[in-house]
């Protein structure tokens, strides 16, 4: 659907898949960060 002018992903991302991976990566980074905070402050 990326070729549809109504469906162009935001700048910085070449495709929607790239943006989806970015969102999941942000989630993973947060989980890892929170895990270390939990362990460090226990």
């Amino acid at each position, binding site marked *: 659907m990326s070729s549809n002018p109504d469906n162009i992903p935001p700048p910085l991302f070449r495709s929607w898949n790239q943006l989806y991976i970015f969102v*999941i990566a942000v*989630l993973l980074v947060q989980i890892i960060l929170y895990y270390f905070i939990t362990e*460090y402050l*226990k």
Partner: protein
Amino acid sequence: MSYIDWTVMLGTLLFITGYGAWKTRGSKNIQSYLLGDNQSKWWVVGLSVMATQASAITFLSTPGQAYEDGMRFIQFYFGLPLAMVIICVVFIPLFYRLKVYTAYEFLENRFDRKTRILTACLFLLQRGLAAGITIYAPAIILSQILGWSLNFTVIFIGVLVIFYTVVGGTKAVNQTHKQQMAVIFAGMFIALGILLWKLSEFATFTESMMVAGKMGKMNIIDLKFDLSNRYNIWSGLIGGLFLQLAYFGTDQSQVSRYLSGQSVAASRTGLLFNGMLKIPMQFIILFTGVLVFVFFQFHTAPVYFNSVALEKTRTLKTEELAALENEHLQLSQTKKTEVLELIDGYSNQDAQWIDEKRHNLQLHLSQEKDLRQRTHELVSSVNPDLEKKDSDYIFVHFVMNFLPIGIVGLLLAVIFSAAMSSTSAELNALASTTTVDIYKRNFRAEASDQHYVRVSKLFTALFGVAAVVFALIASLFENLIQAVNILGSLFYGTILGVFITAFFLKKITGTSVFLAAVITEIFIILIFMAGHFEWVLIKGEVFKIEYLWLNLIGCFLVMLIALLFQTTIGNRRNTVTG
């Protein structure tokens, strides 16, 4: 409360409501009234989706939950970004291609009319009840804080929301969401900033974090898999994924938010924006609650946070309450000394000392818990209609007693704005589902656009009045935010199961999925009741499945039973025709 606070609070609320209604008045056709002419940019979609989910309960209940239970509630949201991605890939392209007004329209296209009506009715039932709670929950707390009667507070919120939602429909909901989110973000960051500034008198930021951690409040991640543990990473990632998938993918109050986007790209980007921002936003709200907890290690907290109920108890049970308060004061002073010594130990890097202090503090916390429980029993004996916990009053107690003039008004505007933002989206969705899926489909298929706009306005007003009436007669249980989530989880699994079957099990037909949905819904309600009323004992332990898992179970049961029915019905038909 000072005149400045009243002016800030009422000025903010009346401006948002009045401007929203004026700017979006005069929708002439149903496309404009229910889908906002598909004009919303991606960031409006994102803010609107966030505003719909963030109810007043989020700001009243969540910090209190962190105060009592620590940060672990954040795991509930871990499934959300994954759900956003799945909705962008699977749901949005289909909804756009079929040009639907509601999510349930798609189901008639895929299955049949009865399946569409069943899911629409399940939605109307659970969201109709939830709309009452989203008004009632903040009203009960705000009424006590402001000295208003509960009924007046419910009617005040209800009338404002009904007014602009009826006048402007989806456009008004989106328009007001922008300003409501601006107020919410501003209030949230200002409260956090002031809290950190006030704490700096006693401890640095790192020391405050350390105190919270040693007292068990920085328990953000729990890796242990346990079905009866409400919040751990697995219930959040798996159960949470299914709950959020059902909420954002099949709940019309959210579907109508992103269907108002100006393009597929705007809807997708808005949802992904929510996927990235939601967890940090919840982190900040929970962290505010944890910092309030640390703050009350240096200042004496009241023995009970519901001050109105406490004062009533003081007049009727003076001596008993005085004894409890005295005990609490002594305990608070001991705790404060231990906390200051813990900070000393941390500065000197004395691990053994830190460990000893941590042990002592944990002991004091359990003594405090016991003391607060005894106080609760005393307060309940005087106030029979009291909620089970006072944790929903913690944050608002801090706001009213420790924040400066002007900011108190802003924070109260935040709570009212959040109440109105979620309620308006709910009323708008209830009206659009009733108009499109029930009225237009079953009673009046051919009528003018003006007629459907009038009917939609009427349904919006009727659902608004029903929510207000429900809020006027409702009673509470345990914790407000959980009440809404539990209610959702009883129905969402089934609705999501129907949608997932529609998307991925191409051979399943309408009758199979309809029967599967009915059976699953009965089963899910039975599972919940078995746990809630402790009907079943297994090896001496109560059989209980926490509510987040019900979404997953419901979804898979619908798919499984539909497959079984399809095999049986399909085989029988083959035998008859063969």
